[in-house]
């Protein structure tokens, strides 16, 4: 099957700092891929390259048949088909929950207001927050805000959803409500790329795990294999630290 997301030899620099080094990977439709690695390994930067929020200096990224690097590419149009969930939720605080879900539907997809609201309510129901449609983000807990943010991404009917550390800004007791929603999405066949340290989630639903360190993709393996027999010393060290932490 043709890859939905395909990147080849992607390199990126911040000034002299080489943050991504010839990264090559692909994601097919319906796949769930987890990207992990120590902090500063470039994983957040990599995922933000996939919808063009970060520019790359070398290599190619092709998403759903469209070359992100081509000057002819209409990036906003492409982004509207790729959902993204952020570490700090990034709901728009001046809009209520419903308006957060309908803004891009009406302004980008040009859906009618009624249609957008109906779609929004369906998704809010799905994340268990239909009662909060008229609340403002500030009135919600972190976990609730992140579930709204997931619904906002889904409202655009994306071909894939990118998650950038979706649980790392949450208090521990709120992590599972967000993970539950993500697991359900994965089981329904949503194409997902998630930067996360939640190894439980990775074991449960990920098809593949990409391990990054120092801006490089060190390992790219089926999730079972990655957890049972990591190939590199760096991945073993990372796993032992993070699993010890989780167990503790």
């Amino acid at each position: 099957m043709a890859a939905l997301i395909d990147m080849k030899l992607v390199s990126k620099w911040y000034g002299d700092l080489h943050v991504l080094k010839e990264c090559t990977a692909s994601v097919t439709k319906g796949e769930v891929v987890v990207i992990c690695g120590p902090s500063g390994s470039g994983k957040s930067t990599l995922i933000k390259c996939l919808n063009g929020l970060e520019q790359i200096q070398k290599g190619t990224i092709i998403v759903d048949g469209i070359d992100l690097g081509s000057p002819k590419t209409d990036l906003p149009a492409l982004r509207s088909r790729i959902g993204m969930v952020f570490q700090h939720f990034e709901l728009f605080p001046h809009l209520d929950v419903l308006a957060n879900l309908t803004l891009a539907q009406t302004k980008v997809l040009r859906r009618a207001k009624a249609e957008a609201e109906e779609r929004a309510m369906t998704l809010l129901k799905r994340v268990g927050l239909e009662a909060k449609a008229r609340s403002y983000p500030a009135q919600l807990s972190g976990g609730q805000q992140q579930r709204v943010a997931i619904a906002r991404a889904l409202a655009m009917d994306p071909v894939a959803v990118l998650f950038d550390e979706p649980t790392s800004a949450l208090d521990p007791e709120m992590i599972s409500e967000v993970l539950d929603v993500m697991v359900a999405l994965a089981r329904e066949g949503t194409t997902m790329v998630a930067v996360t340290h939640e190894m439980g989630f990775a074991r449960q639903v990920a098809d593949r795990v990409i391990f990054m360190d120092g801006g490089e993709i060190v390992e790219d393996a089926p999730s079972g294999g990655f957890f049972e027999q990591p190939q590199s010393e760096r991945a073993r060290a990372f796993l032992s630290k993070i699993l010890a932490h989780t167990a503790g």
Partner: protein
Amino acid sequence: MNYYWNWSIFFDPAPDGSATYLQMILAGAATTCIIAVFSAAIAIAVGVPMGIAARQSGMVGSAARAYVELFRNIPLLAQMFLWYFVLPELLPRDLQILVKQSPDGPLVLGTLSLGFYSAARICEQVRAALNAIRAGQWQAARALGLRPVQTYRYVLLPRAFRLLIPTMTSEFISIVKNSAVILTIGVMELTASARAMQEYSFQIFESFIAATLLYLMINFVIVAIMSAAEVLSGTEADRSATRTHRGGKHG
């Protein structure tokens, strides 16, 4: 202090042609309000786009930032003299005559001067407010497929304006205060009227107390209008949002 108080002076006829000193000083207050309203309109119309421009890289951004530095680092009085004494000399002959001979020339030039001066301050406030919005908001809007203009229109500017209401209140009060500088080019605004009343009537303190109270009243009206705007725009929800956000756990 042996000072002869005479509050009934306000009902005496004023030598400038007004029926009473009270009317003369109220006319001054009205002029101050007119100058302030038009200057504020210019300041917003020029300052807000400039505030957006000042965040861009390249020529547009440099030009906006240069504008701010130019207008901020020259005293308003010197700027007003440039508008009044220098600018007309650089105009085409017909326009020059019009500006110099029109009785409203000083009022118009002074208001333009104050407006473009205040625009530089508004520009800085708008830029600061936009910069105070976390970069993630821009990214989230872009990730949803909103174009740059839409991102400003629906996400950044509405948020910036709520953040800006308190600073705008003091900017508007500053415009009212700075409008007194226009008396130096011969406009009879509030301070000039009080000064003229003091010169004609010798009732120094009555004149200046009246002007002081009128300025306080104008400021009070500005504060009241802006508070109403704050309530109407639901700033409270937004502020508590910012607070929750900052208080949240950052990874």
